[in-house]
């Protein structure tokens, strides 16, 4: 596990205090939780854009692939092939069954 020291801006400190109050946790726990939430959002953003795969996303966030699928659904994030990949897939599918 790595450790870092950093200066926290005042507005972020307010956020940490809010979390302490609402979640009844200590300062370091609150900070870790906020950091994780930010990381989760960032990783899911990469997943949505096709910069991380489903398996890789699940490994980084230490969740099952089902958890990830459920999480993106909950947030209304759309994933999967775009129309560009679909066009290629359609062509391959046609060639595959015709050559059968």
């Amino acid at each position, binding site marked *: 596990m790595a450790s870092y020291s950093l200066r926290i801006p005042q507005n972020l400190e307010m956020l940490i205090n809010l979390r302490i109050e609402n979640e009844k946790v200590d300062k370091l726990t609150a900070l870790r939780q906020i950091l994780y939430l930010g990381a989760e959002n960032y990783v899911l953003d990469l997943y949505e854009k096709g910069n991380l795969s489903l398996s890789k996303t699940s490994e980084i966030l230490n969740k099952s*692939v089902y958890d990830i699928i459920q999480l993106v659904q909950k947030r209304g994030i759309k994933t999967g*092939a*775009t129309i560009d990949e679909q066009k290629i897939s359609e062509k391959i599918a046609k060639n595959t069954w015709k050559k059968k």
Partner: protein
Amino acid sequence: MIKLAIDSDGLIKLAKSNILKNVLKSFNCNITNEIYNETVTEGKNKLYEDAFFIGDLVDKNLLQVKDTKYRIPSNILKETKNLGKGEVSVLSLYFEIGTKAIISDDLAFLKLLKKFEIPFIIPIDLIIMMVNMKTLKREKAQSAIEKIRGFVREECYAKAKTLLGVK
């Protein structure tokens, strides 16, 4: 029978579409130990229904689980840093047993496959292919597309409806 390799994304979406059994009867479908671990073992630990369903299909030998030796050409392997163990194992399986295509709807995986011209079919197009092959009735295909609508991009769902002749 046409031989296919499926990743976790493709497998789960086909399970959710309610036609996975039809797919397994129409094609020689293969997954890896890593995909089994992701979709069955870890899924069962979290009590996901699809995990139990997929596990049953493996137990009935409808879905083959294969070992992989991770034989991927080095020029492709070095581009897999954005992929997890599941996708990398399926890529290896493609090279090792010579599947006709990889079934996946994972955009990061598809981008790599596209780059190296490795054939892939997304679940929606597999469903349509089965209608064309007459191994799946059109009505069942339409229902399947509706079931996975929430899990795919709207543009692909709309295209599937057009291809199925649905307004």
